[in-house]
């Protein structure tokens, strides 16, 4: 049986700059997150994945303008004012960021930073807050948690700081955790520890999560479902195994083939020509047109809708059969 949907994003559009010529960072993005599910939002830099995440919590304002609906427990977050949003932000929906050093306050002890969050979002008294802070640090795997409450962020390593960030985020018992490239700044063995931690915490606490990353392998290891973004739009969504094993969109196909995997060493890799389009030069049609091996003139002018395929998959492409033929012909040629 499918779990209930906790977050539904409908036609999200986030734009910056002058209203007459806006730079549209997120354009018509719709997705759902179910209870206890980990959704991966994957894309290159500038694809709008982080802005999507930030739009959910309303932290792109006042410079950014958010349109569309962000339905959380029957309320539309996009329509809430700042005061009411604050009751949700950090309490029901928490967020962790890429750079743990710049998201912690260097002048406050980590104990104080955790307790600050407990004070804001729970009604525990001082003694209970301290006990809870120890419990949280212990839960995220910081050794000798009690003795480290009085330490400052610079006394922790990068991986340990990210654990502290997670402890702070979990302080309010959120139902949804937004993770913006939480392991990108970390080494591979530490990344592995943090991902496994996030995964087991999400499972134990029954918490839903959106994990933003640029790394398909991180998605493969961690996420239940994946949404691939390109140029501010969704181009493909579905179960992780299905999307990675049987990608349909030419961008996803190309991206997966540009990662060396099951190919003879030192053979040329598939490379997607060109570079991602600038926000100021988005085509009217499909954002991938200029780099797509199977694009036609219709792709440039008409935007492909995110259409449903079987098995809960969605793909936004006018030329699915051509894309499949192109990449299977390439495969056969090897």
């Amino acid at each position, binding site marked *: 049986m499918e779990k209930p949907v906790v977050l539904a994003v409908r036609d999200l559009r986030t734009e910056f700059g002058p209203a007459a010529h806006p730079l549209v960072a997120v354009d018509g993005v719709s997705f759902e997150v179910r209870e206890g599910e980990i959704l991966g939002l994957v894309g290159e830099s500038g694809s709008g994945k982080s802005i999507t995440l930030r739009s959910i919590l309303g932290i792109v304002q006042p410079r950014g303008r958010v349109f569309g609906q962000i339905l959380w427990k029957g309320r539309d977050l996009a329509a809430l004012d700042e005061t009411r949003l604050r009751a949700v932000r950090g309490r029901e929906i928490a967020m962790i960021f890429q750079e743990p050093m710049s998201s912690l306050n260097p002048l406050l002890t980590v104990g104080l930073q955790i307790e600050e969050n407990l004070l804001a979002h729970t009604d525990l008294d001082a003694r209970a807050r301290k006990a809870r802070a120890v419990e949280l640090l212990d839960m995220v795997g910081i050794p000798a948690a009690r003795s480290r409450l009085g330490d400052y962020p610079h006394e922790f390593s990068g991986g340990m700081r990210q654990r502290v960030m997670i402890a702070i985020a979990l302080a309010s018992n959120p139902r949804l955790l937004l993770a913006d490239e939480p392991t990108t700044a970390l080494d*591979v*063995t530490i*990344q592995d*520890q943090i991902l496994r931690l996030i995964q087991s915490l999400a499972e134990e606490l029954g918490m839903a999560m959106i994990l933003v990353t640029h*790394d*398909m*392998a991180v998605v493969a*290891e961690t996420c239940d479902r994946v949404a691939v973004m390109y140029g501010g739009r969704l181009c493909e969504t579905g179960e992780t195994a299905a999307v990675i094993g049987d990608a349909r969109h030419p961008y996803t196909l190309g991206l997966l083939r*540009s990662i060396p995997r099951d190919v003879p*060493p030192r053979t040329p890799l598939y490379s997607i020509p060109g570079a991602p389009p600038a926000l100021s030069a988005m085509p009217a049609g499909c954002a991938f047109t200029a780099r797509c091996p199977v694009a036609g003139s219709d792709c440039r002018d008409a935007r492909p809708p995110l259409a449903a395929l079987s098995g809960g998959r969605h793909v936004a492409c006018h030329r699915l059969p051509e894309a499949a033929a192109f990449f299977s012909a390439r495969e056969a040629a090897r």
Partner: protein
Amino acid sequence: MSLAPLLSIRDLSMRFTKPRSLADAVARRPRKVVSALNGVELDVMPGETLGIVGESGCGKSTLARCIAGLNRPTAGDILFEGESVVGLKGARRRAYNRRVQMMFQDPYTSLNPRMTVRDALEEAITVHGMRSGAAVGRRVEELLDLVRLPEGAADKYPHEFSGGQRQRIGIARALALEPTCLVADELVSALDVSVQAQVVNLLMELQDTLGLTVLFVAHDLRLVRHVSHRVAVIYLGAIVEIGPSGPLFANPVHPYSRALLAAAPSLDPAKRRRKPAIAGELPSPLDVPPGCPFHLRCPHAGEICRREKPALRPAGAGLAACHFAEALPGA
């Protein structure tokens, strides 16, 4: 492959002394010393790509910089075609510098923003006297063509290019001196995945056509496996395992190589793990543990590992520095 190595690195060590803080000076505490490299032994064969992998702080960039002559090692020797290059000065230093070229990680800071591509390339060509007169201009066009930059790129400034194109400019600048050996320090790490493949393909192609030796320093294991003939795994400033790329990735011997490879996320969702591959973190290079550098995190460590630093010796298809190389499960 010919038998004489192009580069031989012998017992190379690099220590950086940190400036003493006022409090430390008053308390007469000794200066802190960062041991970035601790006795690296390495041969690089002509024409091969040697991958160097490890976590941040393991010394892989310091090794690259020592080889390129940007850092002077504290102890040990670097032999290039059999001759020591550590203390070279004057014309002989410049001759070596020409033949070993480094390419840097960050395409946004490694190019002078006030010089056009032509200025940057001409400077390299004329300083080393590679061409003169009209031949300089022709060489610039040739180089841009070699790295597939569009026509008209020569008179543009770095900010007019994308990250991938800037890395091509970096490659062109290195090739301007017709080097024998390229040192690529995280050449593609700052680029998006879809662009990485373009630069990696170009590097492999140029290497084959020009017969270059490449030191490919990177943390992306999948990419290193793809481009390298041989791979060296570094931990805390020492090589713990080195060998041919295929066997090393398929059957790593050293417990650290095993953990590192297991920790790298797999693209196969069926191979998911629930437990992290390895606990703990890299010890600080300010305080390198005695014995085997890895013993604090190693699941197989014994008494001897705490006392004696293991030497590199034949294991698997290459060399590994582990006291229990033969006794480990699956070895």
